[in-house]
């Protein structure tokens, strides 16, 4: 498949990897390059957290203008770009079908905000992606609607739909890696060329933390089979399945409202406004960073650490091990930038 620059996917990936090796440190590098980057000597995975204490103001919902600005801040900083469009042009290409995998299982209180998704879609369109080539998706239509999304199957507009939509469903091929033996959504395997992961920062009663990698439990047909042992190695194994590993492009994490206890469902008493957007191309590094944020909040509220309550997010370390190499959980190899 040729992209908008006339390069095929292999050339593009090679270019990205080479760019990383040359850059050596936490330079801008999108597109599947995370695996190459963390293996490069001296390379660091960059995680950017942009926060705005006035994001909500006096409202119950975040200010759309401030969300757009925050997104721009985050991605421009990540890409070291002076304008907000160029990073998206490097991230995706006009001919690609771009999937935005959101997280809507917790309903309107603790799901990916519609306003953030709208901001991403706007930037993608400005970067040359046709609206019809943008697919916002999650497991079910019902969950999307409950989270505030308006379903759209119109092929001329941004499509918003669940895997349970008519004529979508799960791919007939069963894919396996370690403990993961799953069929994946056709939206990922057959519709989308690449995926931007748009998860939400949450505590998780089984896994400890759910952010980027755990969000892939909304991609497969049998997430219930992968929850044993704190979802470990289930999360790491699932993320190794080729369509997930190969099509994953970037994480834009919704950390505007997070929860430090009671997740993954919405429990208002354990939710707080972090007022942030986090971005990274390394799903392990951003999960590790999110974990630390949740631990700090738990400590602040007098709660025991996740390890002390028996739910350490150990899948994060497994995702970084030699069998998975999905990214790094070594804080010395994570370049954390807060803006």
């Amino acid at each position: 498949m040729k992209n908008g620059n006339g390069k095929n996917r292999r050339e593009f990936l090679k270019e990205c990897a080479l760019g990383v090796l040359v850059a050596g440190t936490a330079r801008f590098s999108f597109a599947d390059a995370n695996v190459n980057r963390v293996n490069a000597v001296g390379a660091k995975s960059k995680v950017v957290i942009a926060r705005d204490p006035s994001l909500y103001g006096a409202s119950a919902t975040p200010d759309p203008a401030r969300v757009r600005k925050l997104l721009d801040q985050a991605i421009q900083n990540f890409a070291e770009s002076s304008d907000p469009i160029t990073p998206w042009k490097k991230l995706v290409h006009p001919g690609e079908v771009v999937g935005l995998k959101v997280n809507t299982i917790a309903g309107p209180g603790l799901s990916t905000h519609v306003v953030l998704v709208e901001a991403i879609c706007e930037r993608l369109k400005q970067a040359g992606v046709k609206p019809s080539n943008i697919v916002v998706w999650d497991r079910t239509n019902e969950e999307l609607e409950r989270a505030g999304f308006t379903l759209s199957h119109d092929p001329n507009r941004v499509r918003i739909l669940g895997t349970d939509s008519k004529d979508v469903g799960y791919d007939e091929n069963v894919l396996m890696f370690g403990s993961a033996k799953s069929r994946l959504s056709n939206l990922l395997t057959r519709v989308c060329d690449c995926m931007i992961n748009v998860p939400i920062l949450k505590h998780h009663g089984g896994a400890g933390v759910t952010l980027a990698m755990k969000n892939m439990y909304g991609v497969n047909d049998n997430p219930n089979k992968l929850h044993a042992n704190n979802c470990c190695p289930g999360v790491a194994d699932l993320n190794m399945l080729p369509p997930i590993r190969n099509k994953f492009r970037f994480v834009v994490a919704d950390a505007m409202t997070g929860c430090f206890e009671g997740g993954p469902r919405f429990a208002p008493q354990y939710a707080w406004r972090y007022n942030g957007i986090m971005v990274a191309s390394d799903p392990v590094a951003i999960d590790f960073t999110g974990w630390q944020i949740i631990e700090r909040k738990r400590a602040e509220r007098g709660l025991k650490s996740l390890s002390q309550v028996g739910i350490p997010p150990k899948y994060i370390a497994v995702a970084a091990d030699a069998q998975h190499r999905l990214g790094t959980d070594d804080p010395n190899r994570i370049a954390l930038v807060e803006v």
Partner: protein
Amino acid sequence: MTRRSIHRTTFGILLPAILSLAVGCQHKSAPTINFFPQSNEVAGWTKAPEVRTFTPDLLYTYIDGDAEKYIKAGVRSVSTADYKFKDQVQVVVDVYTMSNPEGAKAIFDSEPAMGALIPSYLGHEDDARLFLQSLIFRKGPYLVRMVAYQESPEIAQAMFDLGLAMEKKLSR
């Protein structure tokens, strides 16, 4: 209504009522019950027609990985309904039917009481916690959880009233 005034109201007016939640009959089994008050059965509350019910094997489709905790505690089914208070505040009410009261207690006790307007009353067979935007109580083998999706000065009191109505239904 300030947080302090809510506290005053809660302890002054609701305390006797919430204690009544904590005293109830013990269910040996989990018969099918119409748990949910209908529209206007409790002042200000409107119920959506649909009640969704999840069996243990499909509970993950509703609450993802949290399902494991409930399965371990012996959940038999979960029913959930949407409500609106005064056509403004969206509230989801879940009823977890466990195999026995111990299962409901195990879940209830596993959750921190921090921030509760009325914290747990240890020593009672049944128990309840009211927060600014949520209410959780257990009644025999049932665990009821209400979550409001908007803030409102009235919602804590309103959820409490709805909880009392549900408690009566669960006592039958």
